[in-house]
Structure formats: structure tokens, C-alpha cells
């Protein structure tokens, strides 16, 4: 009997991935105290992550498991499954990591904050499972508004956060408008809002379709913090509580980049518009690598530095997708894993000691050795140090790029890594070779619960760098399953 339920649950796993955190988000509003809310949120997020991982294992493990057609608007493909599993796991880490700092938001606001975090995950996972453009945009906006709400919630602690929320609203609104107009243009040119038909559709007006797809890409790039379209990110993250930065900077950006990857993969596969989208992604990706790297080198706030480094990483994602080959898509998925691992390690390590400015890192290695270790691993991954997931991801990009004759992409990867040496080295030097600033000496947070998930991420970043075959195989299969599993 129970086996039948398990099979039923597995058949509807995509729906469960969305519904589990969504139900949890609603439950947050009635659970009352912060601690109970957190425990429920952890349970729900863990359940969602388990379902997503189980589903991914079935899909990429080659088991002959039938995947159900779910409703009218959900559509499951390889990139979606891979990225959804990544988001679900990241959400579980984020929710469990914020437990130790819940009181920062105030007891009354904590359940709402947790609810918004779960909504962010729901939105992005939903967008990854969307079959048509309108459903995708609706899901994206759900996630974006939840992110904005989280930043607004932080204004109880610091009024300056309102500025960040306002920026997010305005830039997010622009992005949404771009996406809606783009969806309309694509539908006009192809006769359908469906994403999965793009590669095979008879496109009557290629220029219109290309313009529409480019607008959708730009709209998603705004939300993914891709430079130079990331004007909201410094204001939003710079004054954000460190634990909330995990939800926006890691989970939110990961979601946007995942959806961008999925949509771009379909658009590039369309012969009439693929070249244009590829060129747009290549230009945007190159700009993001260069601008993000330069900004990260000059940043004096750890959260902003991480955000800018993320923009550089996002550029690598776009470059990988721009290649338009299965190898490129697989490289993009690896870049996403590398990004979220580094972001979780850096934001999480900072959250343990409530570190915001770089000065607060002085002597952090003595005050919070485990958090410092996590930050070090994150920095090493961002600089593409060998035996980290960051190196692996960049190597895959270089391999795919060189294979396609894009030698300049390898050059950009080198630029990103060189910049990583400078800003990553600066973090390490401050943590381990400077004396602690007396003003921050009390903010140790050495053994906070938050460190558990963060350290796991740091260990995973190294472990995957050492033995990446499972992840590489999953990414390779995901890139080949672009045409959809349910079709």
C-alpha cells in the first residue's frame, strides 16, 4: 500500500516540489513563534529537497520511471529537473542556516521571513517547470516579489534597506515589463506561448521572435544580477541582514540564472533565432564577467563583493549557454552549482559573525575559525582554485568553448579567475593575517547552528571538486534532455 503511495508521489514529484514549500509558506503564518516556524520550515524545505533529489536521481539515473504530465502548465525537462533540485537543496540549506539568526528579524516577523524564503523557492522552481511563457513570468514575479518583501522586512532593523527594496521593485518592474513584452513578441512570431515548442516551431517573423526572446533574456538577467543590469543588487544586499542575504544573494540569484539558462537553451535551439540569442548572451556574459570582476576587486563590503563576484560567475553561465551545445548547457549547469556553493559558503560564513564590511573580517580566522574556513573555500572556488567545484565548472566552460573555437571565452574565464585571486586573496589575508578589530571582537558566533549547513556546503564544494563524476554525468544528461521528459 505504502509503495503505491510512494509511486504516486514520485509520479507527481514536480508538483510536490512546488506544493511542499508552498504549503510550508502558508503554515508559517499560523505557527506562531519563531522557533516553531523555523522547525516547520526546515522540515518542509528538507522534504522538498528530498523529493527534488529523488526525482533528479530517477531522471538522471536512467530508471524507466514514467513521468506524469502534470496539469496543463507544468513541463519537465532535464535542465529544469537539475536546476530545480539545486534550488530545493539550496533552499533547505538557507532555511536551516537562518535558524540561529531569527531573532534579528524580531520574533513577530520571523515566521513571515521564513514564509517569504519558501515562496522564493516555490517561485523559481515553478518557473523551471513552466510550460508556457506566461506561467514562467508569473512564477518569476512571485519569487521576485517575495524577495522584495524579504528586503522590506529587513527595514525594521535598518531603514536603509527600504532603498534596496525600492530598487528591487523598480528594476524588477522593468524586468517584468521586458519579459511580458518579450513573451508577446515571441507568441506573435511563433503563434504560441509554449516554451518547449520553440526549437521546432515555424517562426514566421524571426526578427520579432529574436527581439522578444532577447527581451525575456534581459528581464531575467536583471533579476539574476547580471552586470551591468544589476543596479539593484548593491543597494539590496549592502544593507541587508547577513542571514537574509543568503536568501536573496544565493537562492534568488540562483533561481533567476537557472530560469535564464532554461529559457535560453530553448531559444538557442530554434534555428531562426538561435544565432541572435547566442550573440546576445555572449555579449551580456562577457560584459558581466568583466564588470563583475572589476567591481568585486573594488568592493569594500563583503556582501556586495560576493554579489559582484556572483555577477562575474553569472557571466560565465551566460557564456556557457551562449555556446548552444549540449557541452555548453552542461557547463552552465556546473557553473550554477559552483555559484550556489560559493555564495552559500561566503554569505553563510559572513552570517555566522554578522560580517558586512571587509574591516569586520580582520582577525575573523581567530574569532570564528569554522566560518572563516567556509569563506576561504568559497573564495577559492570563486577564484577557480584547482580541486574545487569552481575550477571544475570553469574547466568545463573552457573545454566547451575551445571545442567550439571560442578561445576568447577561455580568456574571459582567465580574467574572472585572476580577479578572484585579488578579491579572494584579500579576504583570506584579512581573516588570517590581521588582528581583530576591537569593535567587532564580540561578534564571534563561532559555534552557531548556522555553521552546520554552511560547512557542509564548503565540504561539498571540495568533495565535488575531487570526485565530480556523478554531478558531471547528471549535468551531461540534463543537457541532452532539453526536449522534455513529458513530451
Amino acid at each position, binding site marked *: 500500500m505504502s509503495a503505491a503511495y510512494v509511486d504516486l508521489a514520485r509520479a507527481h514529484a514536480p508538483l510536490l516540489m512546488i506544493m511542499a514549500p508552498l504549503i510550508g509558506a502558508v503554515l508559517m503564518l499560523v505557527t506562531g513563534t519563531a522557533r516553531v516556524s523555523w522547525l516547520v520550515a526546515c522540515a518542509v524545505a528538507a522534504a522538498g529537497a528530498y523529493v527534488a533529489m529523488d526525482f533528479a536521481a530517477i531522471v538522471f539515473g536512467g530508471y524507466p520511471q514514467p513521468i506524469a504530465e502534470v496539469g496543463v502548465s507544468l513541463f519537465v525537462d532535464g535542465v529544469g529537473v537539475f536546476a530545480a533540485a539545486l534550488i530545493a537543496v539550496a533552499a533547505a540549506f538557507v532555511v536551516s542556516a537562518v535558524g540561529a539568526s531569527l531573532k534579528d528579524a524580531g520574533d513577530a516577523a520571523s515566521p513571515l521571513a521564513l514564509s517569504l524564503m519558501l515562496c522564493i523557492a516555490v517561485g523559481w522552481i515553478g518557473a523551471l517547470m513552466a510550460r508556457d511563457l506566461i506561467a514562467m513570468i508569473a512564477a518569476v514575479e512571485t519569487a521576485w516579489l517575495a524577495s522584495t518583501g524579504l528586503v522590506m522586512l529587513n527595514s525594521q532593523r535598518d531603514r536603509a534597506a527600504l532603498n534596496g527594496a525600492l530598487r528591487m521593485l523598480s528594476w524588477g518592474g522593468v524586468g517584468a515589463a521586458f519579459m511580458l513584452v518579450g513573451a508577446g513578441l515571441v507568441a506573435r512570431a511563433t503563434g504560441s506561448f509554449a516554451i518547449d515548442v520553440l526549437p521546432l516551431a515555424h517562426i514566421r517573423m524571426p526578427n520579432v521572435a529574436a527581439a522578444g526572446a532577447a527581451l525575456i533574456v534581459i528581464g531575467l538577467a536583471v533579476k539574476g544580477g547580471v552586470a551591468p543590469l544589476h543596479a539593484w543588487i548593491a543597494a539590496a544586499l549592502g544593507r541587508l541582514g547577513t542571514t537574509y542575504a543568503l536568501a536573496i544573494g544565493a537562492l534568488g540569484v540562483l533561481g533567476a540564472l537557472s530560469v535564464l539558462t532554461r529559457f535560453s537553451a530553448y531559444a538557442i535551439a530554434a534555428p531562426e533565432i538561435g544565432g541572435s540569442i547566442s550573440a546576445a548572451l555572449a555579449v551580456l556574459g562577457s560584459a558581466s564577467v568583466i564588470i563583475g570582476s572589476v567591481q568585486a576587486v573594488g568592493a569594500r563590503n563583503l556582501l556586495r563583493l560576493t554579489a559582484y563576484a556572483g555577477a562575474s560567475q553569472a557571466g560565465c553561465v551566460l557564456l556557457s549557454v551562449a555556446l548552444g551545445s549540449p557541452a555548453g548547457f552542461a557547463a552552465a549547469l556546473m557553473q550554477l552549482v559552483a555559484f550556489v556553493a560559493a555564495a552559500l559558503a561566503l554569505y553563510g560564513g559572513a552570517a555566522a559573525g554578522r560580517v558586512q564590511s571587509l574591516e569586520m573580517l580582520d582577525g575573523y580566522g581567530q574569532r570564528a575559525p569554522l566560518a572563516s574556513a567556509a569563506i576561504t573555500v568559497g573564495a577559492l572556488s570563486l577564484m577557480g582554485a584547482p*580541486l574545487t567545484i569552481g575550477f*571544475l565548472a570553469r574547466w568545463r566552460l573552457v573545454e566547451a568553448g575551445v571545442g567550439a573555437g571560442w578561445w576568447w571565452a577561455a580568456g574571459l574565464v582567465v580574467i574572472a579567475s585572476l580577479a578572484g585571486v585579488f578579491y579572494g586573496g584579500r579576504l583570506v589575508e584579512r581573516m588570517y593575517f590581521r588582528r581583530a578589530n576591537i569593535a567587532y571582537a564580540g561578534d564571534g558566533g563561532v559555534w552557531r547552528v548556522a555553521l552546520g549547513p554552511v560547512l557542509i556546503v564548503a565540504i561539498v564544494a571540495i568533495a565535488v571538486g575531487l570526485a565530480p563524476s556523478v554531478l*558531471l554525468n547528471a549535468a551531461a544528461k540534463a543537457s541532452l534532455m532539453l526536449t522534455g521528459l513529458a513530451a
Partner: protein
Amino acid sequence: MTPEIALFCVLGAPVLQALLVMLVPKPPGLRDLIHIGFSLFAAICAAYLVVAVYHHETAYIVLARPLPNVDLAFEIDPLGSMMAAVLTGLGVLHAVHAAGVARAKQERAPSRLLAFIALAMAGVTAVAFSANLFSLFVAYQALALAAFPLVAHRGDDEARPAARAFLATLLASSIGLFLPAMIWTYAISGTLDFRVGGVLAGRVDALTANVLLVLYVMGIAMAAIPPMHRWLPASSFGPFPALVTIQALAVLPAGGIGVLKVVTFVFGPGMAEAALAAQLLIVLVGVGMIVAALIALSKQDIRERLAYSCMAQSLAVVMGALLSLQPGQFAPAGLFAAALQIIALSCAAATLLMAAGTTAAITGRTKVSDYAGLGRVMPWTFAGFAIASASMIGMPPFAGAWAKLWLITAAAGSGLVWAAGLAAAAAILTFTHLGPLAASALAARAPTDAFKRPDGASILLAAPVILAAAATLSLLVSANALAEFLAPIWTGSAAP
């Protein structure tokens, strides 16, 4: 013990050593015992590997497969095992000396200092035993990261910027130049494995070969090729035990070993396609040797003087390796000269830096002008200093003489007489900045206030200096055997 186990031990023992030293900071006696004991164990394992290679045994271990078709792997070969044996052997002496200096100078955080010394030794042995370019790159980066805390050890306003410059130069050059070269090589050959005869042999045109050679040689900044040498003077801000590790036993030799391995196993001896870039680089390193020796002459601080002196010696390694790319029968001679020069550099530089460290610990003096007459009150230490100076200069019968003899032979035999001239000029300039210093220390009147420590130098500080100095005589009796031992890397059978 099998060669695989010995190889694993020689790579892993220093890492375990570092962990234990950090975990057992007190009592200092136990900490020092662990440090010395593990160094000795690593040296024994390395010596065992030399014997194993001599008996044509093989060992290949894979630690991870981080990329498809690319392993993080290490294997024994004549070059790697010989270098590891020499460096870990000297490492035992250095371990004893570092323990002595840490006590005599009451260095801050001595456990951290000793731990990173051990990690740096792990890095250089990993470089020596690397089985492919990827493993070399990983070991190189790990060594840079392990050595960075040694430079920054004091944590003051001088050490921190110096450490930043150190790390930025080494990592930036490796990522900006070495990594692209590695990617390019992979794209051309489809493999990153080292092969006798060179993976690029017969696969590249002249333009590609020349560009790749420049990328590799400049990218391996640990060899201190100008203008990638800025990390070397920056490292002078570290404490003396750190200097010995960086300039004599780990970082600088790793640069030489790296260049030698790339030239031998990636390009292959006598690769005519890369001859143009090789000649231009020989000009660069030759002029660099002379300029470095001149700068050393201008430096009054013994740490800075020895840093530039070591740089000149390291460039001689690179010159030898580059000479091997010249077509003709003298290509193996260049490789042999480079290998000898690494051994000579390590022995002499370790002796000089340990002697300077002993002097600083006992007398508090670091200015060369204050060295006059110190040999009268510290005869053993300055006897070692004088012997090592003679070796650096290239005076027979010390190790440096044989290395330079082969270097000049390779240059002249390849038709590059001017290169031989540059090497000879650098040797003369080395004499000017080390010869009078050693002579003055031994011959001048003894200072009346020589000792900061009334009990003088302990045996921990004096014995390693004199034993390392004695090692510079080793090539007098072992050069021929060494040539036969190393022969397989360039010919497969015969000595040069």
C-alpha cells in the same frame, strides 16, 4: 614497503606533520620532535624511492579524478625522485634548525610557522612527483598557498603587503599564463600527461611552440624569471625559517623543477620549433642573472642580498632547461646542468640562509656590514657560510662548480657562446656580493659585543649549517652516478 606506499608517505607525511604540529603546540620539545621526526620519515621514504627508481620499479598513485581523462596523479621518475630526495634530506636539517631558531628568537606562533613549513615541503614534493600538467598545476597552487602564510607570518605592516605581492604574483602568473598554456596543450594533444620526449613533439608548428614556451616559462613564476620575480624579494619579510623554505627548499626549487619538467616532458629535448623563444628567453634569464647579482651587491640586508643571489642561481636552472631545447647533441647537457643547478642551489642556499638565521638568532645582526669578524666567534656557522658562498659562486670542488661547468658546456656546445658568457659574468658578480662578505666574516677582527644570547649558538643552530655545507661537496663524488640515474628522462638509456 612498496614504492606506492613510499610515494604516498612522502606526499602525505608532511601534511600529517603539519596537523600534528598544530594540534600539539606544547610542550615545545614534543612539537619539535614531531616536526623533525616526520621530516626524517619523509626523507627516508624519498631515499627509498630513489632506490626503487634505480631498480626500474614504478609507482603511480591517483588521488582523484577531478576532470574527465585527467587525474590528480603522482608517479616516480628519476628527476622527481632525485629532487625529492635532495629537498627532503635538506628538509631534515632545516627542521632541526627551524626548531632551534623558533626557540632562540622566540618566534610568535611557532607551531603555525612549522606547520606551514611542512605544508610547503609537501607542495614541493608534489611538484616533483606530479604525473601530469594538471597535477603540477595543483601542486604549484597548493605550494603558493602554503608559502603565503610563511611570508605573512609576522603579520605587521611590512609583512602583509609583501605577502600580498607574493601571492598575487605567483597565483596571477599561474592562472594568467600557466593555465592558458595548459588548456592550449590539452586542446592540441588531448592529454595533459607527461611523456618522455614531450607530448607536443611533432604536434605543433613553430608559432604555437614558441608562444606556448613563453606562456609556460613566464607562468611558472616560482622560477623567478623577470618580471615575474617580485615575489622573491617580497618573501624576505618572512622569518628566517620561512626564508629557507621559500628560497632554498620549496618555492624557488619548485619553479626550477616545474620548468624542467615542462621542458622535458611537454616540449621534449631538442625541440627545434621552440628554439627562437628559447633563445629570447635565454637572453632574458642571462641578463636577469647579471642584474640580480648586481642588485644583490647593492643590498645591505642579508635577507635581501641572499634573495637576489638565489634568484640569479635559479635563473641558471632556467637557462639550462632552455638550452636543452636547442637542436643538437648538447640538449641533454642542458637538462643535466639544470638538474645539477637545482641541487647546488638548494644545498648552498639552505646553508647560507640557515647560517644567516643562526647569526640573527644569536647576535641579532642582519646587516652585511655587521658580519665582519663574526666568523671568529661563530667559526662553524661561518665555515658553512663560506663553503656555501663558494658553491654559489661556482668554485670547485663544490656543487655549484659542476652545475655551471655543464651549463657553460651546454651553451657553448649549442653554439650560444654568448649565453656561456652571461653565465660566467653572473658567477663573477656572485663572487663580488658573497666572496668579500664571507672573507670579511672569517678574517676581520672579532666584534666585542657579538652575542645577544650569552650561551651562544646551540647545536640545533650550528649543526644543520655545517651538514648542509658538507652536502655541497656531494656532487664531487656523485655527479657521474647522477647523470646515469637521470639519463632516462632525456635519452631513455644513456648519460649525456
